[in-house]
């Protein structure tokens, strides 16, 4: 295993929900005493159902949210205090891709200006170099010549490419994708997954890939962490997890994956009927 790039040690994050003028809020523990290590260069998939805490975990890993207890270490040191100079640098090395690209982009600004804003924030570079960098990354994600468009003029898949370009233009080390392909059609989903996988090799990225889709997790992840009710119940190499799931919840999840073909469904149902008899 390579050096750990990200370590989460006993991390807990709580939220207060509900609560009105007369009632006390309920406290939900979204992430409950989680420890997770991500090695440089690996793709760690985090799967779980809605409300399992996987998005909270992703936000904690990115340092855009802070835990109530425990520590998040990036290359061995905690994330800096927000607003400080080291914090600004860290913002560039850890990047985030969200589920819904149209809400992650400014509807009124051109794609090129939104991507370029990253350079303005994180790096010093002159106008010519800036333009060259923007064109280069647009080319790389398959959006050549589309820099002057605004989000409304682009499809969902193109918008997600733009979000990926914006994340990668500052050459991050860790890319966190939170349901990055969930809102896309299958054909487009395949395009974006292929793009992410080739960019990963090219940029030497480490990735945390949050998804509810076990098929996607299996395709991209070297390792899968299964979350349930704020805890990681199983965290193993992808092939081991699929071949020999240990935790009962992992087995439940795997059993709920729809059959690949109608024939596979009939085989499964027949086996289940036999087991019940």
């Amino acid at each position, binding site marked *: 295993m390579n050096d750990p790039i990200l370590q989460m040690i006993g991390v807990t994050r709580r939220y207060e929900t509900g609560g009105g003028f007369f009632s006390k809020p309920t406290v939900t523990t979204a992430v409950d005493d989680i420890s997770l290590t991500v090695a440089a260069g690996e793709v760690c998939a985090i799967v779980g*159902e*809605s409300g399992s805490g996987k998005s909270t975990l992703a936000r904690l890993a990115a340092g855009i949210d802070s835990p109530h207890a425990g520590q998040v270490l990036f290359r061995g040191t905690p994330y800096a205090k927000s607003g400080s100079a080291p914090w600004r640098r860290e913002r560039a090395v850890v990047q985030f891709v969200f589920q819904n690209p149209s809400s992650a982009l400014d509807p009124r600004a051109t794609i090129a200006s939104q991507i370029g804003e990253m350079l303005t924030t994180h790096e010093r570079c002159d106008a010519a170099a800036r333009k060259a960098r923007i064109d280069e990354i647009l080319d790389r994600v398959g959006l050549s010549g589309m820099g002057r468009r605004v989000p409304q003029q682009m*499809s*969902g*898949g*193109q918008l997600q490419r733009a979000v990926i370009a914006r994340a990668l233009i500052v050459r991050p080390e860790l890319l966190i994708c939170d349901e990055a392909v969930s809102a896309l*059609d*299958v*054909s*487009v*989903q*395949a*395009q974006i*997954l*292929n793009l992410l*996988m*080739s960019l990963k090799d090219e940029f030497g990225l480490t990735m945390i890939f949050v998804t*509810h*889709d*076990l*098929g*996607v997790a*299996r*395709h*991209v*992840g070297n390792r899968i962490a299964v979350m349930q009710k704020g805890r990681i119940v199983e965290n193993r190499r*992808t*092939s081991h997890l699929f071949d020999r799931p240990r935790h009962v919840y992992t087995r*439940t*999840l795997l*059993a*709920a*994956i*729809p*059959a*690949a*073909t*109608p*024939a*596979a*469904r009939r085989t499964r149902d027949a086996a289940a009927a036999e087991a019940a008899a």
Partner: protein
Amino acid sequence: MTSPGTLTLDGSAIGASVRLAGKTEPASIGEPALNVTDLSVRRGSVALVESTSLSVAKGETLCLVGESGCGKSLTCTAIMGLIDAPLAAEGSIRLLGREIAGLPERRLNGVRGRDVAMIFQDPMAALNPIQRVGAQVAEILAVHGATTSAAERSRAVLALFERVGLPDPARQARAYPHQLSGGMCQRVMIAMAIACRPKVLIADEPTTALDVTIQAQILRLLRELQDETGMAIVFVTHDLGVVAEIADRVAVMYSGRVVEEAGVDEIFDAPRHPYTRALMACRVGTGQPGTALPAITGIVPAPSARPNGCAFAPRCDHARPLCLVQPELTERGKSGARVACNLPEEAQ
């Protein structure tokens, strides 16, 4: 309210025992419960759905598959007679042998919810947020006169809730939608849809917003209900795994048209249309993990910017000059599969 005649439901005696009384009607596949012919939905001069024909037999599940914007949901909306200006629908929709396209709203109201019912993708948005869910289901029974008294209705609602697997029906019936989870709301929607024992159930992506374990439960529930009542189901989904779970027959739509229609095994084992084949190929979980998926290049054209001829041709690896002509949906092979592709059969 429409006159009974052919539309009379055995379910009129729904009463307190909504056990859906075993197999009252054996699911005999054959007689079409729903027959849609040459359905088009237009906005001005732009056709969003174009000459689509579908038929579903009693006890059969037809899956309508395709990517966003291909017209799946619009087709369903049109079947339910819910197309409003600026959209306009034309074509024939025969429900249990009777034309319902163009029926006046008042008469359609007698059909909708009783003979044909719909489950929507987002149950939270489809339920009234300020009315208790039990009352919302009871309203369907009251409107269609399936019950005679309020007490009978509430008993029927409880029986329905129990049937769709809502735990503690009496308590859930008094809940508002926001107090229930997505899966629970979807069960309420299903209870509402089957309350009058429709002959045809239209399910528009009913499990897309749900977790995979809940999805498995809902699919199982729909299959059981179909076995009990022999209803025909039109099931819209973009997920081919769900298709493998629930379909008897599959219609693949692309850019407003059906491009292939065949039995579910044929669609998986021997897809004919290049689009169907490409869709099958780019599923995750089928290939070797980590390898590049065979993605379809390009995007679905906007309805206003469809190319001449076959709409899939610009993305198709096998496109030839003859693809500039609009292909007709024609029968191929002996199984009754229909394919809209200009390529000769051996090239498919």
